[in-house]
């Protein structure tokens, strides 16, 4: 039975999770050091979601636009997780930059088929310029 359960857990991990989409996008950035600013990331992701052709990837990220900047609870949760487990490393002492673990992020990117990878690559680069 143990073997079956382990297999089931591994299968579950193969499903595309919101974290995978975000990791895939960040894996396509040219730089591995980017500005750490949740507000800027939220705003950039919102713009990306509003771009024709991109919404299908980002549908789960519902943005509240009633405040001074668009805000998605799910995006906040994902970014926090990536920080907590050092995929987005925070650089001491100022904490104002992320050091991206590109090797780890690329694993998420590899989950997608070729067509989606192309789209994700474009989106990732646009995201980078929006955050910069």
């Amino acid at each position: 039975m143990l073997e079956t359960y382990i297999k089931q857990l591994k299968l579950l991990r193969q499903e595309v999770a919101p974290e995978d989409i975000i990791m895939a996008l960040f894996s396509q950035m040219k730089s591995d050091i980017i500005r750490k600013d949740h507000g800027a990331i939220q705003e950039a992701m919102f713009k990306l979601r509003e771009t024709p052709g991109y919404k299908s990837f980002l549908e789960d990220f519902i943005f509240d636009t009633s405040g001074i900047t668009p805000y998605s609870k799910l995006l906040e949760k994902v970014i926090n997780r990536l920080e907590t487990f050092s995929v987005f490393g925070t650089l001491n002492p100022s904490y104002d930059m992320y050091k991206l673990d590109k090797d780890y992020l690329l694993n998420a990117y590899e989950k997608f088929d070729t067509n989606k990878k192309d789209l994700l690559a474009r989106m990732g680069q646009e995201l980078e310029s929006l955050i910069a």
Partner: protein
Amino acid sequence: MLDLKEEVEKYVTNQLPDYKLLHIRAPKVIHDTVWGSNLFMPHEVALLDLPLVQRLRRISQVAVASLVYPSGNHNRFEHSLGVAVIGEQLVNALFQKIEEGQKKGLKPFTDVQVNKDFVLTHVRIAAIMHDCGHGPFSHLSEKIYEKFDDLLKVKKEDPALSKASAHEILSYLIVSSNSFKLFFEKNISHEYGVKVDLNLVAQMIVGYVKDQRFAFIVDIINGVFDADKLDYIQRDSHFTGIKMVLDLQRLFYTVDLVYDASEKLRLSVDISGVSTLEQIIFNKMMLFTTVYHHHKVRAAESIFKDLIMKLKSETIKLNGVSFSSTADFLHLTDDDIYTLAGHENKVIRYLATNLRNRRLPMRALVLSRKTTGTDPKSILKAVITLDRNGGLDILKKAISAAAKEKLGKDVPEEEIWIDLQPGPNFKEATLCPIKSMGEKQNFIKLHEVLPVDDWVQAFSQVKWSGYVFTRPEYRETVYEASKIVLEEAFDIKLNDFSRFLCKIDEEDISSNV
């Protein structure tokens, strides 16, 4: 089958028609441990008397935290009163500034199109009603019903609810129900001569701005430094005994208005009030790490969750409801859960008795950055997987199977609980506009003034823990079995801290709290 809106309508209808309001002749002074003596107007007292609001006396503000912090027995009712009191103070402070600004002909104050009485009436009623949608043990039951299909459906369909949390949606549906509006019109508006727009009250509760003129009023009840937060930080810290400082007077002196990008007037703080906002963020961090995420609190929460899921899966009725609708939680309060300690179903009785008598499972394994040494990334894989539907159940089964197959020991999967803390968010830093006249938009984000959120986030992240809990007699086995499963399924290589932090080896010589 009724949809959630209809279910809530039915609930409100059942609560109100037979209820005869006593006529309240005069304002009442209500005493509060945190905010002292405060005056409530007759129509507010009439509202407080409704069974819809009185049930909040039997819903704990901090869920099961009193099992760890014994004096944390405050309830949602007293919190709602506190929000009304703080809401009024915010309105008073803000209108002092607005009126001074208007006398001098200054923008944005000259653009305020509502008067103070209107704002005060609506803020106080929204405060009184804002938590009437809570179920037993507040956010504990919310974490269960927020995933119910009927709630997700209404959230998707109504744009006013897209950012609202689950209990806010229930409060919104109660306040905007036809039954409540009819009752209010007849028994409160007419009787006490108060005009209230209940649609606006409902929108304030969920933080939805429909009418541009009312954006800053909505912010007072559901914004980045709303009256709700200002009360719960003070109240939760006071009653749990965790000492905190929050300089509200300074906040009131510096409260202000700014235009957002779409020209709506929003509640803001002058740059000289930033230190109070920092206190809010630091206090929130401390409450999360010391109270809400205390491992014993998380253990009790795991028991509660199992209890409700057991009732739901076996369609066992409690107080006439079987958890088929989110609205079923409105029929229950904390005491209903404790009555399950006498239930005929053995498992239900066992779980409820353990919760009531504080016989909580203990830590068998701790998962954290500290317990995986230099590679915390391996935990991420587990966290993402276990978030998927059914993930936690499979892990429990796997640990039980590993105990049997690898260690030759029997540990029923029902005696294993897994908890992965959600991280707190510090959105205040991103969403709070700080008035700063030199800026292009006349405001700046708190994060841009001082990235306080980055520091508290770093602290919270280091403190993050996941737990495997079990009964004392199984700890040794569950530790070994969990370690095997986590390594095989997720490549997590745990160090000895994963065991030391559970104090398994100190069981006989220390207090193990």
